[in-house]
């Protein structure tokens, strides 16, 4: 199973790309643990997590091809 991760705003200064794909990660807590290990600077930034365009506030089970977005505070306009 595969998860597509979309990275926005200042998080792209850390992850250095707009999209990532990870395999065989079953829930968002495990995903974030995985990413924090790879990108320790992530822990210094505030951001929201969306799964399939819905912002989540607790650990969420991931299905194959789910889209996870990491979104720092918005600054449009």
């Amino acid at each position, binding site marked *: 199973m595969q998860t597509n991760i*979309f990275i*926005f*705003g*200042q998080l792209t*200064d850390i992850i250095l790309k707009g999209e990532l794909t990870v395999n065989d990660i079953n829930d968002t807590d495990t995903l974030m643990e995985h990413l924090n290990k790879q990108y320790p600077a992530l822990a210094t930034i505030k951001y929201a997590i*969306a799964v399939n*365009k819905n912002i989540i506030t607790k650990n969420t089970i991931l299905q194959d091809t789910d889209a996870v*977005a990491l*979104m*720092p*505070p*918005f*600054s*449009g*306009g």
Partner: protein
Amino acid sequence: MSDKKIKNIFVQGAIASSFIGDSIQKHQAKTNIGAHSIFLGQVRADTIDDKKVTAIEYTTYEQLALQKMEELREEIFSKYQLTCMHVYHSLGTVAAGEICLFVFTSSAHRKIAIDACEEMVEKIKNELPVWGKEIFDNDTHQWKQNK
């Protein structure tokens, strides 16, 4: 809500003043309108630590932004008796002095148009997944923060 009905609010680069003039012109056929309220966001050439902002580069999570925009549109139309509302937001690079946001509300009466426009601007700033990257004249950048 079917996908085909979702309006695209995003335009590549700056919003031209002639486009704004044309939008106003198109409303002259709607003779039940008595008042228009327009908000325009313009990129400021702020100076921060001796570096000057020359442009803002906007990115969005487009699918989520357009879905959110439909929700905001429904909230505004259920609260205010508007004849119509139009919103345009830039993506990509907008130079200092150029327009990056255009919010346009119309109503029979001024108070309604003015209040709806102001509320829509606040919602866009706070709730739309858009990010601005301030580009400095020495090619460094910082991420814009909304107050």
